[in-house]
């Protein structure tokens, strides 16, 4: 136990200090995000992620959002296990036809207003894989998409920016 505490103390607080140039951006985005999450979603935004044929790169960066540098949860955004609890669906990959139906079912299981965010070039426009016998080519070909976050894969910072854009969308 002592060794663990010692290591925690040595590690210190890693959540992006404002001094770093990219950190300033993160902090600013974070505060903005928090405000919008508070206003629109009653202080918490639950995201269900679905990999619809990704190469796994987008997931690595989505995972990174949870590390202490970005600590997405501090903004009231968290990933949830069931689509029934989700405010937003975060979809990656060119929608492989083998995932097409599972994606549609996940989307149907969500409560309205069913925000959909397509993350990564594949999800936005098919990316390297495009449309073929095996993939639909873009998320919007299968379910309606509200926001696109391009990048191969988008960096964690670009993902945060994209989430911000998602919340800024006028859905009234």
């Amino acid at each position, binding site marked *: 136990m002592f060794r663990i505490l010692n*290591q925690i103390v040595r590690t210190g607080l890693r959540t992006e200090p404002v001094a770093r140039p990219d950190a300033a951006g993160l902090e600013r985005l974070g505060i903005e995000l928090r405000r919008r999450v508070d206003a629109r979603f009653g202080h918490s935004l639950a995201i269900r992620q679905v990999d619809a044929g990704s*190469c796994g*790169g987008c997931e690595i960066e989505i995972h*990174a959002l949870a590390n202490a540098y970005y600590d997405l949860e501090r903004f009231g955004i968290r990933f949830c*296990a069931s689509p029934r609890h989700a405010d937003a669906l975060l979809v990656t990959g060119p929608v492989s036809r083998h995932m*097409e139906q599972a994606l549609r079912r996940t989307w149907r299981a969500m409560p309205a207003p069913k925000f959909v965010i397509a993350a990564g070039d594949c999800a936005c426009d098919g990316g*390297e*894989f495009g449309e073929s016998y*095996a993939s639909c080519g873009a998320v919007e070909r299968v379910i309606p998409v509200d926001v696109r976050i391009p990048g191969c*894969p988008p960096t964690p910072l670009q993902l945060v920016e994209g989430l911000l854009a998602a919340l800024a969308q006028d859905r009234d």
Partner: protein
Amino acid sequence: MNVTDPLADLQGLLTAPGIGATACAGVAGVESCLALPAAHWGLLAELAADAGLRHAGLWADALDEERLRVQALFAAADGYLLAQTEVTGAPPELASHTPLFPGVDRLERHAQDLLGVRFLGHPRGAVRWTRHQAWPETAHPLRPDFPLAGDHPGRTPADGDYPIVRLQGNGVCEVPVGPVHAGVIAPGHFRFQVMGEDVLRLEERLGYVHKGIEKHAVGRDAAGLVRLAARVAADSTVAHAWAACQALERACDTEVPARALYLRALLAERERVANHLGDIGGICNDVGFGFGQSQCALLRERWQRDNASHFGHRLLMDTLVPGGVVRDLDPAAPERLIQANGELRRVLRRLFDILDDHPPLNDRLLTTGILAQGTARALGCTGYVAKASGIDHDLRHHVPYAPYDRLRLETAVVEHEGDVAARMRVRMREIHASLGLIEQLLAALPEGAIAAPLTPRPEASGLGLVEGWRGESVALVRLDVAGRVARYFPRDPSWFNWPALEHLILGNIVPDFPVCNKSVNGSYSGVDL
């Protein structure tokens, strides 16, 4: 040192008059290549099994509308043999290797689904694997007459009637999981048959992220192929891109500058460190040890930021090109990278000290998910899955390719218990080994060019083989008359490591599945293709 050489023996047996195998010169990058009549394909497996060889994969290639070439790769401790045959007919038939080499089960069914080869004597008959419902059983996407766009524009239904093998009996329950899982993970379906908490049987059903990578490769130029290879599985982007580059460069006889080779190895070792860190954290997380997870995630993030600043991409995607690498290190980089290594080592010393000896963690990881060495061998596992079960095999050590043939390598990492804890320890030790290699590479970085031009050679074939962070990664490339890609098959180590999970989970409890799965960490994308 063995007095006999199993590869030479096998070659001798196969080229005997009754069998009539002949040496084929067509595939660059593998020391022995034999062509044999289709009738002896089954005998090939028997002789290879007798010789104690490992089956390192099997794939098919449509030479034209009629003829299919099937190739099988066999590995001895220090070398490889590629065997090939040609089949025609409707359907083309060939003896299955699965009864003797259970690890090639899915590879044969993949070849069946994409090219239409029927493997006679396959224990699962003609049950599909990669194919779900996106194309009918009678169509084969990798045949030349099948259009990339397919001929099936409507909605694709779910693959509802896939025949899962079931156990029945008093008290046996079935637990279906996936394809959409609770966390941020790739999709796959797992069907457990359980008695109480104990797993009696597990069947994996993958193929959900099949996006036609092999079909997309057809007609590409070398640079386009490597860009695609970088996306076979993002966590192994360097491994697959390097294997594809090697295959192309060997096929086209391109001499890669020494500096480029060193930089590639640097990238590969950085990929290994990043993923091992991620997995160690993931294993901790799956048994509720959040401290381990958050520490590893921090270290990985720092590592990836260094990737971005020195190599231009956090995950190292698109850092390799045919003939070399994309960008050179700037002059200040080696010093900064070595300094970052030192910092990582210091943190890891304290962190690993805790992970090695933390009773609640040990309690969950020791004796959990044991993979017996015999099973690992029978399946043909490689990488940390094999190493943790006492199998001493690592291409960098035993079949070294440039630049590893010029480096001082410590003995390869091997553990013997075969449990989750051993698979974690292999990763911990490999991180240290990779840090050492990175320092060696930086200290001895040759001067000179970072890429050489690659001139495509019509109708050439090559095989690439590298030790990725997950294990042995293979790439087969065949070029057409115009020097464009006619066939690309990336063989991820996960083809052999995924089935190990079905075995090592038996007798464990369902709540230990996540940690067992993480300790194997098979790639979905790498096998679904």
